[in-house]
């Protein structure tokens, strides 16, 4: 990220008043203003960007009010939206697994985590391109955009020639989908319960006082979301599916598929932890990062894929288990050494299990190991927190955080002594970190006299949650800023597009301004990706 300078605005109180008077560019609905949680605001902003304002309003209510029935939603949204719009919004949300329906209670519940993951779709696609191929990424992209799809419809859509310039045969698409299902990237979706069963429909018709509609007017029942007009039953695809035994077993025609986000998080976690181990211990044990990544990929396969482990605890592995997941150059290096691949690998793993800070592997038997994911993740979180605090408040603040994390509660004089910083400077930093909610201050009274009070500092219990909230907050603000930049630069975009058509409209200044505008947008996008990655590591990577 290029270094930047961000000029402070003129007068904070004036600015805050101006912020309060903002109009359309600030994401705002009747419900959003009441929720101060940045994660919630970010999730709802994602929904709005992806699906539009109506869908966002419905999601907002469900999130703010908890589970609600359709009738309750209609009552709440009566002046703003009619029944058909609300139903359509609900169906969109359900299609994308952002909302689930409980048939027993007729309640719709909003899933915040799924909404936060919308920003991560490009990352999943990039990951798929690397470990499978581009066709698989394309299949995945189509599935993400649609939310969920039947086998036949998905294959038909992706292999339709008019959808891209690139020719993709039905066999290639089928093979790609097969791989994705085998690996566990794509999983069958539970059937959606009927959003409006007959009983509820009757209630809506009869209970006109609730809906304030005349008795004769019926609520229009729309058909559940179905495949688009361009989809048709491609008999070639059906024939391909039913013609092959393994396709028939794995890809039933009418199965509805959706993206398995947990798989991608585990996969990305394997990459991240492999890289961490390589950077930390690569000098002592060559290719140790690859060993750990292979072990985690093996575990991933057992958890999400079609492979099953004979052991009760699927987190345990032997050197033989991970060989299939290791990169070829690493295997070749192990082969060249005397003893063979298996022997060298076992010795390396045993050596890796003896390393500390963090603990990488646990040795259960001679050749039975387990990756200590908890230790690795805690170490990663600790280093990230240290970097964030250093970036926000300076190197000394990072050092103070380390001191308090190791030594617990201390007075400011002791902290200054350990940090080798003057007491006055230490107190300023401590108070700044306190305002940022990183630290807590306890008062210990030895006697009733205030002069005998001792002030003791410690790391806040909510510290990790504060870091996550700050990250979400920054991400939300950047998204809003980007939205605004696009609106401001709309004119340049249009002029650039016109200039592409004819040379008459090509103007040097316009071109330069447009390039600068694009660079600015690109940097905002880059910052958003960085923050999203941080959020993923801090929140979505499981600790076990």
């Amino acid at each position, binding site marked *: *990220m*290029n*270094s*930047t*300078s*961000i*000029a*402070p*605005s003129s007068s*904070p109180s004036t*600015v*805050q008043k*101006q*912020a309060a*008077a*903002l109009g359309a*560019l600030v994401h705002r609905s009747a419900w959003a203003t009441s929720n101060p949680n940045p994660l919630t605001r970010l999730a709802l902003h994602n929904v709005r960007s992806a699906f539009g304002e109506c869908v966002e309003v419905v999601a907002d209510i469900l999130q703010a009010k908890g589970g609600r029935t359709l009738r309750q939603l209609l009552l709440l949204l009566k002046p703003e939206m009619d029944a058909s719009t609300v139903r359509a919004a609900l169906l969109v949300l359900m299609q994308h697994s952002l909302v689930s329906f409980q048939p027993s209670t007729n309640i719709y519940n909003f899933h915040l985590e799924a909404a936060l993951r919308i920003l991560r779709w490009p990352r999943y696609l990039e990951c798929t391109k690397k470990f499978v191929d581009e066709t698989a990424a394309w299949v995945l992209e189509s599935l993400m955009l649609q939310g969920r799809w039947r086998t036949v419809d998905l294959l038909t859509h992706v292999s339709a020639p008019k959808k891209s310039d690139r020719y993709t045969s039905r066999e290639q698409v089928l093979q790609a989908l097969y791989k994705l299902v085998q690996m566990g990237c794509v999983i069958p979706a539970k059937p959606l319960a009927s959003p409006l069963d007959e009983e509820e429909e009757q209630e809506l018709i009869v209970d006109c006082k609730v809906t304030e509609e005349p008795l004769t007017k019926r609520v229009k029942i729309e058909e559940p979301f179905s495949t688009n007009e361009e989809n048709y039953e491609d008999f070639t695809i059906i024939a391909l599916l039913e013609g092959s035994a393994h396709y028939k077993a794995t890809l039933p025609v009418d199965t509805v598929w959706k993206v398995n986000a947990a798989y991608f998080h585990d996969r990305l976690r394997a990459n991240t932890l492999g890289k*961490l181990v390589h*950077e*930390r*211990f*690569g000098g002592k044990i060559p290719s140790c990062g690859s060993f750990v990544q292979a072990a985690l990929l093996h575990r991933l396969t057992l958890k999400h894929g079609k492979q099953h482990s004979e052991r009760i605890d699927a987190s345990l592995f032997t050197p033989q288990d991970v060989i299939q997941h290791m990169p070829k150059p690493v295997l070749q290096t192990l082969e060249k050494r005397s003893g063979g691949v298996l022997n060298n690998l076992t010795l390396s793993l045993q050596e890796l299990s003896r390393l*500390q*800070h963090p603990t990488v592997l646990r040795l259960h038997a001679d050749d039975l190991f387990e990756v200590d994911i908890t230790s690795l993740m805690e170490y*990663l979180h600790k*280093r*990230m927190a*240290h*970097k*964030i605090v250093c*970036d*926000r408040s300076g*190197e000394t603040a990072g*050092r103070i955080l*380390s*001191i308090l994390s190791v030594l617990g509660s201390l007075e400011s004089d002791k902290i200054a*002594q*350990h940090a*080798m*910083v*003057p*007491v006055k*400077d230490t107190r300023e930093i401590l108070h700044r970190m306190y305002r940022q909610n990183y630290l807590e201050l306890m008062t210990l009274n030895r006697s009733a006299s205030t002069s005998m009070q001792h002030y003791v500092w410690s790391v806040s219990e909510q510290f990790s949650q504060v870091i996550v909230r*700050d990250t979400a*907050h*920054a991400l939300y*603000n950047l998204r*809003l*800023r980007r939205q*605004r*930049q696009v609106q*401001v630069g709309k004119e340049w975009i249009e002029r650039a597009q016109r200039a592409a058509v004819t040379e008459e409209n090509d103007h040097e200044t316009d071109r330069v301004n447009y390039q*600068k505008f694009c660079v*600015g947008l690109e940097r*905002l996008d880059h*910052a958003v990706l*960085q*923050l999203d990655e*941080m959020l993923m*590591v801090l929140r979505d990577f499981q600790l076990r």
Partner: protein
Amino acid sequence: MPPTQKRIAETAATTAKKIKTGQALAIPEPTVVSSSSTSTNTLKDRFIALLTQSEYATAGISNSTLKKYFPDEEYLQLVPIINELTATSRLVMSRTAKELHYTLVEDQVALQFVGLDPSARMVYQVIERTQTMGCWTKDIRLQTNIQQNALTKILKTLESRRLIKPVKSVTAKSKKLYMLYDLQPSKELTGGVWYSNLEFDHEFISKLRYFLVQTCRKRPHSLAELHHELEQKEISNVALSLEDVRQLVQTLVLDYSLEEEERGPNEEAVFGVPRKVSVPCEFTWWEAIEPDFGFRTVVFEDGVLLAPHEPHYQTA
């Protein structure tokens, strides 16, 4: 005003004795020409000789022990001798929980106290109690109840006699502390080796840290080896103790610039430079958290600008 004493002609022997013991500058003691004067001097000599013995030289002699050496009448005759020695600051009395102790003061030291009035001695005692921590002027005034003007004069007198000296503290540079002349101020006042001229020497510490990291980069070193390297290379003008080096190394470990490498249980810990670890945390625009981020101009190094948002004004 001290009581006037009858001055009696001194004999040559008395004068010589006084010069020898440094009493020439003292108020001449009344020489009573009587048969008991010789015995008094002998008693005094015996008393002084007793107090100069090694077992009583530093801690002094207790009243009960004194009675053993000087029983009955002799003990009573000691009283004027004790008073005389106290008046000339040659004897210091202190009280423990149980009884009085008498300690003899050296001649040269006693000379410094000659002519000091009780207020000055009181001020001196207050300052003496604080040892290496020193005492603020305000605290002296509160404890002695002496007015500021008089106190200032007393402090000047004591300073001129090299009994006390002013020092400054790093925590309060504008205030003056007084302490005994021969004592070194404590680390709490001076700040220790990391302060020079009462200012925290950031540059000095950075230089030391950089040196330690470069040394450990070549190969891991133990604390003792690092200490030795610092001494050999003469990086520092002031002598650094092993504890100072440990403190420096600890800050480097907390900053992840150094790490302690594991050795056997009986081996000394060594410190090396760890491999660089990149965490998925490259974002640095933390101003984005501020509520007015949208109204701030973002300027990149290459001149690209993200203009601030214009507020919307409602017009009629």
